[in-house]
């Protein structure tokens, strides 16, 4: 099937039933600031089904420079990008030099400039116009907007508000960077350097009398982001090429992979380089632009494929690979019951069928024991047990209004509503300090729906609450750290939006409170929520993918937010009303891309211990007493 093969499948760039509507040879990318270094290839527009795709495939075996290996070239390959993912195309017509275009994607990221050494830009644009919706921007004749049915002007403006990952500084060390030894850099420094390089690059263009130099500077700054992204993808590809990752059925051989494989692969490669190679010319160290990001979503994991992940005794042999698979496609509904306990950490991946069966039975009686603690409270006892009565009352109020539109819960005396109640009440005894808090019923409802069995649901919920419990702390510290991290991520990934929020006193990000508290439960329909959750629970790209999901939604609506000058209350209303209107697959792709772009700078925005990271091993520090009876 297809996980690793977004490379493989599309490296040919063409599929059956496709019609090539435009071909241009000698369209080149300049991977470095040296004009002499270029990768030439063939640009095509392909019409397939109802959509128009663009590919750019470098030629084999004719490099302008010995440094550009075949592998490097394949990394720049543009593999079948649908125009529905393209936001705009900017045409550059320098007085001296070749015409080039920059293709900006809806995610805000851009491909590197494509230089048309044989001309043909006009024809390129005309062909697109013929097959997709393309309009010339009203305020800049060189900008062409794709798929833009309303308000092209604003769209142009927003397309220029490019993310900046780091502030571009001119520190001496950046300037001196080319002579430094590559191995002495941390990732972050390299990243800074890329920006410096981008700036250098931009200045060069300026000298060349580029009429669009301001834009170029921004675009090039953006490339530093792309570059960053690409370096990681690069190493990932490397790694996969080294293993036998292209054959999906061979997953089980991949036990050598570690969670951190991109970095490991990368450092291996760095070590192979001769010491004296100046890094700016090292394609592994900068401008390594692979043009696949936010990989297309895949069909969900099904039973057959899942079985192949298990050894004869039922161990998951390559949990990394399973998590990756689920990250990109989710799990089929029928299989969730089996897979979720692993994702949630209730079952460990290396347990056998027998071990799990045993655990389930032990846990079942443990559940019954805890449940009996409150079941055995008599009416008389309850009269003098205010906290219990309050808790029970609160839970009972909430379970009857949780997901009642789902048939699983729609009957008035549904046994499933009763199970919700029993589990939540039992949990409030299992974790008496945390107790019950509004929002928990939202988190439990899909779990019960999937697991069916009460005890199993309880333990899966317990596992989830290990991570999300701090969301419900009385002092809001779990929420605070996440909203804080979110503000830092927006600052990193969309500085204009950050500035906008700052100016409008929205930096507390409270308008995202519901998103974060219950993992977008209220934002998507039931099935979509389950899909999102299993993707988040893989912790595959990041433990905090949910924060990147927040950023990607905000970025998607940034034009509206800023354009309509929303203040805090309007924004909160707007965000609440987005519920049901968010395109999950698109958001997940963006979130992945943003996560990769942000890289370690992104992780540095997130304070240690921020949920859903597992808490430090001192529960007493973590939960405060439940003080619901104190006003």
């Amino acid at each position, binding site marked *: 099937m297809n996980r690793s093969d977004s490379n493989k499948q599309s490296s040919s760039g063409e599929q059956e039933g496709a019609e090539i509507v435009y071909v241009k040879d000698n369209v080149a990318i300049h991977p470095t600031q040296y004009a002499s270094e270029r990768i030439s290839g063939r640009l095509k527009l392909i019409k397939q089904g109802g959509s128009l795709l663009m590919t750019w495939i470098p030629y084999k075996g004719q490099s302008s420079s010995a440094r550009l290996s075949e592998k490097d070239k394949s990394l720049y390959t543009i593999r079948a990008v649908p125009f529905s993912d393209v936001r705009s195309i900017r045409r550059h017509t320098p007085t001296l030099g070749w015409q080039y275009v920059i293709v900006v994607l809806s995610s805000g990221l851009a491909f590197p400039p494509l230089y048309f050494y044989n001309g043909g830009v006009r024809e390129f644009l005309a062909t697109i116009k013929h097959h997709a919706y393309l309009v010339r921007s009203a305020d800049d004749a060189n900008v062409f907007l794709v798929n833009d049915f309303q308000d092209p002007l604003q769209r142009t403006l927003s397309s220029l508000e490019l993310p900046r990952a780091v502030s571009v500084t001119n520190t001496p060390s950046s300037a001196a960077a080319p002579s430094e030894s590559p191995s002495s850099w941390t990732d972050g420094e390299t990243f800074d350097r890329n920006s410096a390089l981008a700036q250098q690059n931009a200045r060069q263009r300026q000298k060349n009398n580029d009429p669009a130099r301001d834009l170029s500077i921004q675009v090039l700054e953006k490339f530093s982001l792309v570059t960053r992204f690409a370096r990681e993808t690069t190493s990932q590809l490397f790694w996969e090429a080294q293993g036998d990752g292209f054959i999906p059925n061979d997953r089980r051989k991949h036990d050598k992979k570690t969670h951190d494989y991109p970095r490991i692969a990368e450092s291996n490669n760095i070590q192979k380089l001769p010491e004296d190679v100046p890094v700016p010319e090292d394609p592994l160290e900068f401008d390594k632009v692979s043009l696949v990001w936010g990989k297309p979503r895949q069909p969900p994991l099904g039973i057959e494929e899942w079985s192949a992940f298990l050894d004869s005794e039922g161990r998951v042999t390559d949990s990394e690979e399973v998590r990756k698979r689920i990250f990109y496609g989710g799990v089929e509904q029928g299989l969730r019951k089996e897979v979720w306990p692993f994702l949630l950490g209730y079952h460990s991946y290396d347990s056998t069928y027998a071990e799990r069966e045993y655990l389930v039975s032990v846990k079942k009686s443990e559940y019954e024991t805890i449940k009996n603690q409150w079941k055995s409270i008599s009416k008389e006892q309850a009269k003098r047990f205010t906290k219990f009565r*309050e808790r029970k*009352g*609160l839970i009972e*109020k*909430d379970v*009857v*209004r*949780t997901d*009642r539109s789902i048939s699983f819960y729609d009957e008035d005396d549904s046994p499933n509503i009763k199970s919700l109640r029993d589990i939540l009440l039992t949990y409030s005894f299992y974790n008496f300090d945390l107790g019950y*808090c*509004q*929002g928990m*019923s*939202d988190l439990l409802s899909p779990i019960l729906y999937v697991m069916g069995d009460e005890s199993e649901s309880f333990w899966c919920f317990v596992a989830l609450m290990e991570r999300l419990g701090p969301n*419900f702390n*009385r*002092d*809001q510290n779990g929420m*605070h750290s996440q*909203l*804080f991290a979110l503000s830092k991520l927006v600052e990193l990934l969309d500085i204009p939006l950050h500035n906008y929020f700052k100016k*409008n*006193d929205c*930096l*507390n990000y*409270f308008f995202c*409170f*519901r998103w974060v*508290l*219950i993992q977008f439960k*209220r934002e998507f329909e039931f099935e979509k929520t389950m899909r999102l959750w299993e993707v988040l629970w893989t912790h595959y790209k990041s433990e905090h993918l949910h924060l990147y999901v927040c950023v990607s939604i905000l970025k998607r609506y940034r034009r509206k937010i800023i354009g309509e000058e929303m*203040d*805090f*209350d*309007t924004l*909160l*209303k707007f965000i*609440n009303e987005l519920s049901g209107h968010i395109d999950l697959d698109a958001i997940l792709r963006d979130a992945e891309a943003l996560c990769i772009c942000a890289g370690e700078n992104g992780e540095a925005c997130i304070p240690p211990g921020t949920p859903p990271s597992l808490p430090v091993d001192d529960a007493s520090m973590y939960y405060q007493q*439940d*003080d*619901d*009876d*104190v*006003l």
Partner: protein
Amino acid sequence: MATSRNKNMNAKLVLLGDVGAGKSSLVLRFVKGQFIEFQESTIGAAFFSQTVALNDATVKFEIWDTAGQERYHSLAPMYYRGAAAAIIVYDITNQESFERAKKWVQELQAQGNSNMVMALTGNKADLLDARKVAAEEAQTYAQENGLFFMETSAKTAANVNDVFSEIAKRLPRLQPAQNPSGMVLMDGPAQTPATASCCS
């Protein structure tokens, strides 16, 4: 729009009260004329606006509906600070919700501005058989504390619009609508606490 005439004003209003008292249902009834039997619990807060006409003037309410659970209490000041009006809701079938309402009144009196118009609302008035809080008791309490009192039913719509109109009548006529953010959260002094209460 209401902003063009002088007699039109904006007013920030906040709903406070125990979980399940019917805050969200009252807002839904007032803003959309609907009632949902299984209204979801409110997570965080929700914001709505609705305009009421009053003789020749209008009041546009900017309504903050809050989560009732005590656990989220630390967030409440962010909503009531700077509010021109508050509706404190309890459930007439639930004595504890009435006790909780009194605590909200105390808190607002201690912290809020003295000009704030406060309404005490005994909701679920349609459930007469299950009544636990006598109307007289609430009425007396309201009088003693300078609130006005009404029993409502979000379900049958009884008195719902009346509560809002009554508040509109009692608002001090100070806020011309030219300042659209009038008494809302975005007022200068309201921001610092808003940030602090959420992120501290």
